[in-house]
């Protein structure tokens, strides 16, 4: 069953108020085309879950700039002064987690579990007494699973069944989010027929994917950021 969708249709499925996971660590893996369409369609009151806030003018920062985002769940937004300003103004609610804890909370939802026991940050200010459970004589921090209504994912390659292959450092949160969201929308510049991948090379099996949007080309957003090149 083909999962191909148009960019417009795939994003139109997202209502205002939705909780949306967005793949990517910095630029690699950020689904810029899906985000641009979400900016164009203008859904509001969104909760966005992404490792970072991209940089001002790019990716999910555009959603923040257009005031479409109510809450951001993230690990570090140090490269986006605009997002920090919005946070400090109280214009968006920002919830921070240690990076691997955010990954694991998402993966826990993706595994169909409800939470996990950890010691990360247990002695730090990120842990409140009510986050702790005493289990058979030992104190653990309980981190609850984090799921979402939608995940927006960029894949290097895909097939009609939704099998995905990532490349480079663009894997990051994407396979976890594809497992954790109820409706998974993927953009890819390279969509082909089933059978194109060695079965052992598939990063995200198609069972986790609902919609695949073929991109005709990649915009400059997907290119090298000159200010990150060391001279």
């Amino acid at each position: 069953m083909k999962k191909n969708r148009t960019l417009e249709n795939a994003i139109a499925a997202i209502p205002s108020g939705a909780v949306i996971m967005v793949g990517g660590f910095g630029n690699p893996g950020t689904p810029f085309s899906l985000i641009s369409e979400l900016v164009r369609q203008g859904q509001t009151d969104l909760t966005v879950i992404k490792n970072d806030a991209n940089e001002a003018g790019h990716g999910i920062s555009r959603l923040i700039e257009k005031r479409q985002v109510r809450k951001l769940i993230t690990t570090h937004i140090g490269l986006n002064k605009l997002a920090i300003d919005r946070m400090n103004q109280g214009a968006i609610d920002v919830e921070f987690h240690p990076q691997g804890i955010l990954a694991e909370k998402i993966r826990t939802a993706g595994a169909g579990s409800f939470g996990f026991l950890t010691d990360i940050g247990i002695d730090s200010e990120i842990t409140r007494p009510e986050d702790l459970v005493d289990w058979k004589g030992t104190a653990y921090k309980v981190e609850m699973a984090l799921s979402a209504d939608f995940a927006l994912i960029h894949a290097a390659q895909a097939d009609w069944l939704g099998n995905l292959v990532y490349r480079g450092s663009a894997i990051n949160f994407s396979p976890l989010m594809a497992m954790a969201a109820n409706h998974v929308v993927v953009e890819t510049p390279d969509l082909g027929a089933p059978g194109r991948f060695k079965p052992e090379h598939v990063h995200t099996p198609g069972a986790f994917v609902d919609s695949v949007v073929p991109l005709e080309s990649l915009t400059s957003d997907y290119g090298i950021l000159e200010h990150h090149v060391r001279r």
Partner: protein
Amino acid sequence: MSAVERLLSRAVKEISPGSIVNLGIGLPTQVMHYLPENFDVQIHSENGILGAWKQAEPALMDPFLIDAAGAYVSLREGASLFDSAVSFAMIRRARLDLTMIGAFEVDALGNLANWKIPGKFSPGIGGAMELAQKTKRIVVLTTHTDKHGNPKILKTCRLPLTAKACVSRIISDLAVIDVTPQGLVVREKLTDISNGDLQALTEAELTFETGEAAHEFV
């Protein structure tokens, strides 16, 4: 050689052949450029790389391949790429031998504060907390004092901690200092700074080893 160059040149010597190392954002990422081209080390980047290497040649830069600091890294032979859950599994399972990390403050107990200055700077925790809490060995790279000349090596950290009692060694532009059960011990220092002058720039009490301690550290 500038103070920072001196610090980075010394930091390179912390890396044992065959080890797996994470280089935190700031001074540590710059250590990469001081590594000999054929040095046997695997650089871990928490965004999902084992085997990252120096910036790729311009023609080979890949916009889909950055390290956690945003640099367009190359990959060494034998590199692997994986998701963020696997990347932090590697960290939490203590499969990293060494993390070099920056500091706002570090103290005599090896406590580290490097992620938040309440009311001034709170961009998020990133991967620092897990790296600091779980890596086998943490070496802090820091200028000995802040830009106002105030000590960064304290009796007790005042900022929110990244992790408690996690630091094994501090390498500043002036000295190499170990965190020991007996407090901070200076292992190496610049020859042109006296023990008294170094102590004056350090809030925590320092013990000075004889022998090595007398030597220029680079």
